[in-house]
């Protein structure tokens, strides 16, 4: 069976460093930090009191209040980012076959705020379960893809992938597969998360996974720095419209890049710790390269998973060295989580958008906040520290690794 080509024809972003794709790129290319004190709840007694929240966002600018109140924030974010991507794709909504348009979204958790609010309300009562009838449909992770399809009338495959921080990469790869096998023409994909909540921040700090640099939040997400002390949680959404190449060409669509490969693997090692040799990460990248049918030497830029945790960062770089050999020193590598924080299930989506924009602008966004490069890290790697740079980027690879040992990698190429 001959596989069809799949291209990116629309992008959307709602992130801690920009509420649209153009603002996001402005933030990425100039090295902006999206981090600040937590405003979403009273974090005074929490070990970590900062996060990468989205700013100046009023949901009612995008979704009528009566609809918005039946959506958890992670779904609201999904709607806003996917709206931007769909508009960007410039479809004639009456001309496309909506039965052949899928929505495959990623979210690591789903409606956590909704879950918390309802259980807190229950806990304050006398044990009578006065649970709101919208609780379940707001909370479940697949309400995001469901709401996107309801809003746009897209009747193709519709579901959400859940694989922690690789969720969105898994969603993108599934969307890719449905299009290249000819099952659908178009798929809205990406991911979102709204994890700046008491349970999430409390839970991740209990694992000692989050940075506790409360005296200087803006520099807390510092991948590859010797003093990094954990990830910074972020919220928001990234969206991509994927489209079969001939379908896009026939309607004269603007094409950002081609999605040429997706790879995945499992560490089969530990529920939270990455494999110490980076074996799962290596397998995922090798799988993606094989799927893309390209040589390792063709990759120009890697947007790493790079969460700023002591253990995770070096193992991914080791895997990159094992995968690419000498070529690893010729590539540009960066962690845009240094700016956006870690959007968990939405991370792969905003990082895919970053990788595509890097190709479009032929510019590598930086890894900010690295003041003292960890001596345990190979000093000859080009980690794009603190300042972005122009360079030729034909092929960009983006990694996402999740608790549970899930790894997923996507590769985009300039068209």
């Amino acid at each position, binding site marked *: 069976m001959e596989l069809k080509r799949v291209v990116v024809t629309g992008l959307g972003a709602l992130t801690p460093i920009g509420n649209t794709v153009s603002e996001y790129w402005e933030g990425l290319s100039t090295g902006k930090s999206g981090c600040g004190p937590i405003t979403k709840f009273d974090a005074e007694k929490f070990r970590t009191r900062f996060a990468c929240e989205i700013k100046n966002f009023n949901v009612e600018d995008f979704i*009528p*209040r*009566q609809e918005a109140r039946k959506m958890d924030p992670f779904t609201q974010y999904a709607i806003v980012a996917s709206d931007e991507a769909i508009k960007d794709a410039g479809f004639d909504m009456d001309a496309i076959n909506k039965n052949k348009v899928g929505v495959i979204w990623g979210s690591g958790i789903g409606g956590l705020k909704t879950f918390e609010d309802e259980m807190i309300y229950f806990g304050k009562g006398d044990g009578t379960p*006065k649970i*709101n*009838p*919208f609780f379940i*449909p707001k909370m479940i992770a697949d309400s995001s893809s469901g709401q996107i399809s309801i809003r746009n009338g897209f009747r193709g495959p519709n579901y959400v992938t859940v694989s922690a921080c690789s969720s969105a990469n898994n969603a993108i790869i599934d969307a890719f597969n449905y299009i290249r096998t000819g099952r659908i023409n178009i798929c809205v994909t990406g991911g979102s998360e709204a994890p700046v909540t008491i349970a999430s921040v409390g839970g991740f700090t209990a694992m000692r996974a989050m940075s506790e640099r409360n005296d200087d939040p803006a520099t807390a997400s510092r991948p590859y720095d010797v003093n990094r002390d954990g990830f910074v949680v972020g919220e928001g959404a990234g969206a991509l419209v994927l489209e079969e190449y001939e379908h896009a060409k026939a309607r004269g669509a603007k094409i950002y890049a081609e999605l040429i490969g997706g790879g995945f693997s499992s560490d089969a090692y530990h529920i939270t710790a990455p494999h110490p040799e980076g074996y799962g990460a290596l397998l995922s990248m090798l799988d993606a390269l094989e799927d893309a049918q390209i040589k390792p030497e063709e990759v120009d830029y890697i947007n790493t998973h790079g969460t700023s945790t002591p253990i995770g960062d070096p193992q991914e770089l080791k895997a990159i060295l094992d995968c690419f050999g000498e070529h690893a020193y010729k590539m540009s590598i960066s962690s845009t989580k240094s700016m956006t924080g870690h959007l968990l299930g939405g991370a792969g989506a905003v990082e895919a958008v970053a990788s595509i924009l890097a190709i479009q602008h032929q510019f590598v966004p930086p890894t900010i906040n690295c003041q003292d490069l960890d001596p345990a890290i190979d000093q000859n790697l080009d980690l794009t520290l603190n300042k972005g740079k122009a360079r030729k980027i034909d092929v960009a690879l983006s990694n996402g690794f999740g608790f549970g040992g899930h790894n997923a990698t996507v590769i985009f190429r300039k068209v």
Partner: protein
Amino acid sequence: MFDNLSFNSNLCIVFEPQNILEMADIAEKVKSIIVEKLGVEASEVTPEASFTNDLGADSLDTVELIMEFEKEFNVSIPDDQAENIQTVGQAITYLEENAK
């Protein structure tokens, strides 16, 4: 059988005069809950208006409305009674009779 819930709500109403609602207050509160939850204009919320046929409520909206009435008026509306509350007027009448 001793009914703890209604006993509490009765106690509440007997001893806390601020909870004694005038009929006009009930109608106004019902209307404002409907405007808030269904996102409709106050002018549409007439006594004859049906939640589902006229005000755009689906089955979940209707359940939520009943729960809001229970919360606001401190009553417990049994399912067999809730089924009979289909219009704004029926809600007001039920609450005028039971919220006291």
